[in-house]
């Protein structure tokens, strides 16, 4: 098994240089903090702090309902694995405006760094392909991030990118964690834009 070298704190700004171009849904914990820092907790971002597993499905609902916008899910390996069937649903629905980025640190960072399944042999790249997704990319070192950024904008959607990162610290951004306020912020901003 390859040893991860990417520091997640350096990842998203390189991978998504134009975050305002996207509607973004994240899973809980580290992925939410990293994305909140990327967008300054913007009104195009809905982060979760619970409902583990819901990010991919929620992003799919956004993508199918806003076909003129690019939609991005950013989540962690533990969150993704709580709803792996969601990848099959995405592949079946095949939205042309949807990308999933999985920040895979191989541990449950929020609860103390306990080893997760991807540290025990589970391969999310293969799972994504086996779920029927065809635009799938695995990123294991910094040199591949620029190529992955092109993949997000240039390959056929839906897309899935798994990025192997070290199990170091996440962004420390303090985001709004009131789900009702975040729903209204996102919804009102979107509806004002169309």
């Amino acid at each position, binding site marked *: 098994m390859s040893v991860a070298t990417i520091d997640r704190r350096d990842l998203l700004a390189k991978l998504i240089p134009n975050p305002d171009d996207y509607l973004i849904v994240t899973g809980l914990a580290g992925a939410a903090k990293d994305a909140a820092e990327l967008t300054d907790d913007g009104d195009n971002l*809905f982060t979760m702090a619970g409902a583990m597993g819901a990010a991919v499905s929620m992003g799919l*609902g956004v993508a199918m309902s806003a076909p003129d916008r690019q939609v991005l899910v950013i989540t962690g390996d533990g969150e993704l694995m709580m709803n792996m*069937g969601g990848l099959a649903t995405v592949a079946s629905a095949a939205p042309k405006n949807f990308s999933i980025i999985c920040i895979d640190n191989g541990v449950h960072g929020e609860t103390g760094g306990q080893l997760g399944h991807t540290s025990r042999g589970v391969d999310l790249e293969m799972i994504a392909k086996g779920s029927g997704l065809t635009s799938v990319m695995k990123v294991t070192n910094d040199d591949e991030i620029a190529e992955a950024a092109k993949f997000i904008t240039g390959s056929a959607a839906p897309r899935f990118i798994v990025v192997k990162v070290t199990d170091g610290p996440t962004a420390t951004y303090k985001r709004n964690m009131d789900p009702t306020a975040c*729903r209204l912020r996102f919804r009102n901003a979107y509806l004002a834009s169309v």
Partner: protein
Amino acid sequence: MTDSDRDEWSAQIFDQMIDAGVTLFSYIPDFGNAKIIELAEAHNEAQPVLLTTEEEGVAVCAGADLVGTRGVLCMQSSGVGNCPNFLSLVKGGNFPILMVVSMRGDYGEQNPWQYPLGQAVDSLLEAMGVLLFKVDSQEDLEPAITAALATSGKGGKSAAIILTQRFIGAKAF
């Protein structure tokens, strides 16, 4: 319950939903929603979404709401047991989710496996803040759909239309 009966009430549910602006039909296949989904597949504006587990549909509908689209989750009562985790997103964020639940394990059921969740549907949904609109007869149907659409529309609360086995009948074994 004949096939033509089911065609009729399925069309009633589907037509009222389309008229109310519901376009995203997420589902796990069941006898009780098969015709509704067929109608969605044939409709220009409706988008059916086949799920792998019912809880996905909760989040799909919440995502649709984030951009002002109305969705519905169609499922058998056994699937309600898969939903509470993602309903925490709905309850906590005040997402108005709409469901159609076709019942098993509530009236004349011959499969003992269906009773545990069939009998827990009301408690589970009510615990997670979903209001129930039961259909026991043809007379209940139109007003229950109307009420559930209003509740999950301008009412801003999650609502489930419950098609009971008194209404849809019990499967023979």
